[in-house]
């Protein structure tokens, strides 16, 4: 979805930011968004407060609130997928191979 939307918007994003949790993906405030999502995924409240403040500082509170909502949505979707054994159809395997390698996710337990 990031590849598709960023190409369509004229600024192809660097997926390494998703895989590595570093960099800005070539997007405005990208580094702060990645750090915010990373901190929500952890359980260090001080780190989360710091990442939140950084994002508010560069983009404003309304932006941070919508970013928090997006992350909350994928805290939901990951559990829907992993709780129901969701998998991709076999005919998407060829497309997935390259993407899985770029994101370094092929070794996950959830890879089905």
């Amino acid at each position, binding site marked *: 979805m990031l590849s598709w939307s960023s190409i369509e918007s004229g600024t192809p994003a660097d997926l390494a930011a998703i895989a590595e949790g570093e960099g800005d993906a070539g997007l405005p405030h990208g580094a702060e968004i*990645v750090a915010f999502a990373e901190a929500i995924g952890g359980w260090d409240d001080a780190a989360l407060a710091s990442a939140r403040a950084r994002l508010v500082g560069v983009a404003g509170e309304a932006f941070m609130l919508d970013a928090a909502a997006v992350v909350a949505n994928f805290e939901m979707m990951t559990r829907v997928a992993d709780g129901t054994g969701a998998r991709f159809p076999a005919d998407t395997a060829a497309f997935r191979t390259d993407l899985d390698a770029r994101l370094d996710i092929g070794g996950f337990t959830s890879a089905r």
Partner: protein
Amino acid sequence: MTSAIRADLAEAHRQSLQHVASPGARLDAERRLQIAAAATQGYLAAEPPPPWVRPFADPALDVAFRLARYAGTITQEWYEQVITEGMHPLEWVEIVGIVVATVPPLAFARAAGRALPEFPPSVAGQPHGREAAELAPATLNWVPVAAPADTTASVVQALSALPGEWDNMWRLAAAQYMSDAQMVDPLWNRGTLSRPQMELAAGRISRVRECFF
């Protein structure tokens, strides 16, 4: 000055908590709130037990705890083990529905630095029994889904066996992320994050959670 949370988002979270506190297809509201409490504990615990530990010795609560904290470790073998031990597959689906109704309001409040939400009082009544008119085994999910199976994406059909859980999940998705109709436009956004910025946030949290999907 603290910005207001969007009204549609606040309402979707309120409805989700009310949904948890209401009778479900197979479980009454008291039991659903017990499951939500286990999910809350799993999501927020500072020092949780490892994934293979069943902290409650109660299958429904243990599934909720593990799904809330260690979703990426759940395997088909564990699902089948729990079903073999006596849990009905649709009870598993309902537990997933409760967890995914509970975690987003918690996750959002914690992320935004706001007070964690509280559940409303339980609604009295028996389970309502509403299930899909016809169920079918799926190849794209472990769980049974509404027939016909595998004609749509696996995450779309995932909770389709229980329409109440399915409706709540997609109501949340529309407020937190976007609706199906908006998703087909790669440039759609709310005026804050651009669509690529939304996908960057989504991609990173999914990667942190080790969600292959």
